[in-house]
């Protein structure tokens, strides 16, 4: 590995999104004929790195060299031209078209300006065979294929572009165990053909089986690069956590057993995303939801808030079963629930509308008599909220979209506090906001809990869960895998249970159905 000249090299790559630093002077060296695994927590910069490689986003600074020549990609098509092809986590196939159509979609073979269907079919067959999926008929419609087959088509589509570097971003997350084994065969064969493969996965066992070389990312930097197998799972987890990142969290009040249970779920299931979840939240308690991104945490919060249809199981408020049919039912009346949604720009706020209109939007029924808004009452309550949360705005009548991310998030929270909710569900509320505002939110959260609110808090940031929560439930594949209480909530325990690794150094287990 050391002797051969690297096929592809990235040096000093940085990328910012607004005020958020996604990558900071990151380096990566990729050699031909090897499988290179990239590890890191959610938000460590892995996705940004491969998006830069694949030409989806442009880096702010840094250089990329391919075969020793400096390159830059204006678009994913340009990256494809240079032989870098990426298979993203989300499928990119068009369901209404045939497998063959999809495989050659970006560059179909042509005769006299028309698509040459024979050549197209031949290319598709070759690509499918190379992907180890020759059982898929090129003329089948993609929508008729099960998810795992579609993933194989996705790989074939990438191979039809004759890549020299193939990037797989969580490409196996939708596959069954049998398909994963097949894909691994294909990947190993591609490696022996001299391709460079970049493999991103949260599944430690897959990385252990496949990778030749590993690079760990943390907070936008590459913190370690080592030959596969030279470090234990525990060492890797420690590398992923790091030690440099800390916030100031308000002190926890310690266990108070006497409080009454406000929110309870019994055997909550929904489609294949929520699997028999039971939990309870007491008044004055902050309960965290942990685990990797996309293990059902969001669906769980939406289920409580009355958004999901076809939910099975029971939700109890104050010990009494209730049926919550809509957010209106969840937030109004006796239940008094509030949801701070995941994406403030599309779910929390109406960006072009004013700060005033956004703030009072969730509490309009309380601020109006006979449907007519009591402007004086509205103004009073808004002034209270702007003061309480220290929202920095140039005025109440400017569009809320003009505020900074942190202040936008404060508006989302304030608009719910205007209803004085008893149950507060928070869906990753600190994503993309600055550290100072984060700290204010942590303190606010604790203040609300001390005032008797029951808080259910999902975060992708493990430090937050440790710093803020009295208990943490770790979800994996839609089920609660572990409950951590008080001092048990450590980075190590969180990550180990998020990856579904049992105990110290024990073999990782495949998730149910994965």
């Amino acid at each position, binding site marked *: 590995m050391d002797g051969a000249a690297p096929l592809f090299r990235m040096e000093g790559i940085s990328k910012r999104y607004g005020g958020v630093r996604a990558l900071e002077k990151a380096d990566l060296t990729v050699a031909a004929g090897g499988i290179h695994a990239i590890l890191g927590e959610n938000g460590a910069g892995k996705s940004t790195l491969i998006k830069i490689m694949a030409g989806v986003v442009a880096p702010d600074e840094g250089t990329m060299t391919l075969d020793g020549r400096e390159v830059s990609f204006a678009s994913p098509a340009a990256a494809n031209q240079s032989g870098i092809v990426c298979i993203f986590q989300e499928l990119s196939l068009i369901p209404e078209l045939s497998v063959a159509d999809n495989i050659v979609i970006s560059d179909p073979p042509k005769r006299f300006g028309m698509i040459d269907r024979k050549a197209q079919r031949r290319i598709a067959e070759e690509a499918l065979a190379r992907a180890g999926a020759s059982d898929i008929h090129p003329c089948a419609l993609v929508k008729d294929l099960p998810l795992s087959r579609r993933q194989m088509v996705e790989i074939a589509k990438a191979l039809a572009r004759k890549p020299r570097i193939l990037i797989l971003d969580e490409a196996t997350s939708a596959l069954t165990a049998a398909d994963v084994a097949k894909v691994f065969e294909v990947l190993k064969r591609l490696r022996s053909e001299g391709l460079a493969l970049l493999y991103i996965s949260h599944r430690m066992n897959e990385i252990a089986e496949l990778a030749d070389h590993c690079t760990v990312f943390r907070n936008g930097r590459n913190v370690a690069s080592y030959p596969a197998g030279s470090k234990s799972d525990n060492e890797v987890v420690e590398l992923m956590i790091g030690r440099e990142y800390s916030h100031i969290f308000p002190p926890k009040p310690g266990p108070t057993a006497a409080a009454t249970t406000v929110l309870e779920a019994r055997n909550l299931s929904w489609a294949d995303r929520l699997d028999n979840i039971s939990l309870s939240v007491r008044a004055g308690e902050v309960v965290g939801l942990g685990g990797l991104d996309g293990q059902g945490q969001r669906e769980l919060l939406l289920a409580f808030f009355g958004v999901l249809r076809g939910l099975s199981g029971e939700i109890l408020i104050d010990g009494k079963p209730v049926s919550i049919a809509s*957010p209106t039912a*969840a937030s109004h009346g006796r239940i008094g629930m509030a949801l701070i949604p995941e994406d403030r720009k599309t779910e929390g706020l109406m960006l*072009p509308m004013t700060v005033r209109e956004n703030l009072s*939007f969730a509490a*309009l029924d309380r*601020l109006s008599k006979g449907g*007519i*808004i009591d*402007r004086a009452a509205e103004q009073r309550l808004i002034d209270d909220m702007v003061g309480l949360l220290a929202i920095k705005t140039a005025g109440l009548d400017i569009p809320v979209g003009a505020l900074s991310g942190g202040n936008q998030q404060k508006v989302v929270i304030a608009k719910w506090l205007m209803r004085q909710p008893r149950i507060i569900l928070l869906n990753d509320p600190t994503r993309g906001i600055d550290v100072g505002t984060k700290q204010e939110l942590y303190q606010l959260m604790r203040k609300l809990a001390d005032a008797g609110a029951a808080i259910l808090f999902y975060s992708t940031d493990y430090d937050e869960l440790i710093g803020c929560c009295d208990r943490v439930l770790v979800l994996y594949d839609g089920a609660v895998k572990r409950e951590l209480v008080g001092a048990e909530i450590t980075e190590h325990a969180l990550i180990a249970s998020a990856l579904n690794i049992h105990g110290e150094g024990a073999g990782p287990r495949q998730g149910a159905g994965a």
Partner: protein
Amino acid sequence: MSETTLGGIAGRMPKFLRRADPAVVTAFACIVVLLLLGSLYSRSFLSPEYLLQQLKVASFLGVIATGMMLVILLGQIDLSVPWSVATGAMMACAAAAYGSVGVALAIPFGVLCGVAIGLVNGIGVAYLRIPSMIITLATNAVAQGLMVVYTGGFSPQDSATAAMRYLATGFTIPGVPNAVIIWALIGAAMVFVLTRTSFGRAVYGIGNRERAAYLSGIDTRRIVLIAFAVSGGLSAFGGVLLAGYASKAAQSMGDAYLLPSIAAVVLGGTSILGGRGSYLGTVAGVILITLLQSILSVMQMPEAGRQIIYGAVIVSMLLLYGRAPASR
């Protein structure tokens, strides 16, 4: 983006203009330009009689466009206007044939028929999740069919009641046609609803981001249903007024109001994607469209030429400011 360039121009304007929506200002400016151009052709375009007459004609469109605006603010569209108008007119005239009770209930009955059409639209859009473009087109066709069955395919023989004629052509205040007063009242009510009520806030919220409105605990389906019902009712009321104006209902009387009502709303600066727009703009749009039609017909332009110029002017005015995307 044209919003920034307009903002730059607005920066040099007096304060009261700077605070106004640039689209509304542009629409009013276009009205002035149209009148000046018309006055080059004939001095009578600036006479008070002509202007009052235009305002009266505009008020029919104004009533219909008010309902259309509500629906467009939600990010939806109501294509059932033509036959909601005709249904309102025909049913009001039909009720008049049933003695004195029928005469007394003619107007509310006509409006209620429009509300019924609107309710079907609203249920389709809000509860059945059918795209508004499809469901309103379908109810329009059904309403047409029902009216053809009712009239037997001929122009209905019933005539408008005295009350309908009085509303459309009478004068309660000397010099101001009743139709204009009615439009003013409906307009004032709409401004109040849009700016001062929780319903109005919810309409803007849904138009901007339905998901956020829903997650804020707004009963979005109820709001959408009500908006379509109001739109249907106002279209039918416009039809009632038109029947009073012409003394009777006619088969295709609503056809001339679909495009103008949408164009008036959009020319007035209301975003066709929903969530943004003021009623003042719709007023400007209605007057602008009415003047344009009137001037083209006074110039005795052949029908084909009139249609071409009418369409071309609408497109070019939309290009002036209609493309500005919402700031998201």
